[in-house]
């Protein structure tokens, strides 16, 4: 059984009258158990050329990934580009989650419940440089 942890810290000394300091660590386990997640895509990198502005799959539910639906899968995505005005829009199915600007990252659970649960990305139509995305899935496989 693997042990994987995801630690998070959110802090600010001046966003409110009281300093903000939120920290937590989750041990990533299979759904409803204390057994660690055992499958990962590994950290991957996708580079969108300046001409690529159409919506595209980033993380697919198709068989090569074989992440079990409605389990405790996790997804990490980071916009590692350099131009501060560029962003990518992250969607699941047809629903927009949000925009990752340069340096922004996200970490979320992923149901991968059917083929419409692909995680897709769209670079801003105004971007003039390549957009670099780092991403990883940690989850439960069909055989797990």
């Amino acid at each position, binding site marked *: 059984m693997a042990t*994987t942890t*995801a630690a998070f810290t959110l802090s600010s000394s001046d966003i409110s009258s009281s300093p*903000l300091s939120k920290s937590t660590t989750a041990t990533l*386990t299979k759904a409803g158990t204390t057994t660690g997640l055992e499958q990962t895509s590994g950290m991957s990198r996708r580079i969108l050329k300046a001409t690529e502005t159409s919506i595209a799959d980033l993380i697919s539910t198709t068989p090569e990934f074989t992440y079990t639906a409605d389990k*405790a899968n996790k997804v990490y995505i980071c916009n590692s580009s350099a131009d*501060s005005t560029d962003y990518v829009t992250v969607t699941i199915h047809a629903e927009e989650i949000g925009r990752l600007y340069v340096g922004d990252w996200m970490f979320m659970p992923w149901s991968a419940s059917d083929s419409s649960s692909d995680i897709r990305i769209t670079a801003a139509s105004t971007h003039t440089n390549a957009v670099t995305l780092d991403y990883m899935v940690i989850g439960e496989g069909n055989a797990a």
Partner: protein
Amino acid sequence: MATTTASITLASSDLVSGMAMNYYKTATLNKAGTNTGLEKIQTGTREYLATGAVELLDESVVTTSGANKVYVKNLSTDATEYFEIAIQSEVLGRLYAGDWMFIPWSAGTSNNITVNPSVATSMKIEYVVVHE
């Protein structure tokens, strides 16, 4: 201008044999397309005593298509308990006990964030929204 940072560390010594993993990333949370820090924040904790999808965050409280960020954590300690998290009607995934998430949030029309607790026996959730 406020300065707020969000950091993540993903670590495992045995997820992949012979290749210890220790990824770290920190982001300064800025307004869309700028180097100006986000300046507004909402925090809260909620308790649910019934199952069924309910609204956690309404899109009307933040700027549409901004660089808003949302943190949510399932405060349960029972490993079998989870919240199903959705934006509008699209399910993102399940947050099991102790799990957390941190996502950008466009907050477009009807893009409310909803949660659906798996049991009706006092499940708690905490959240922070940092927004424009």
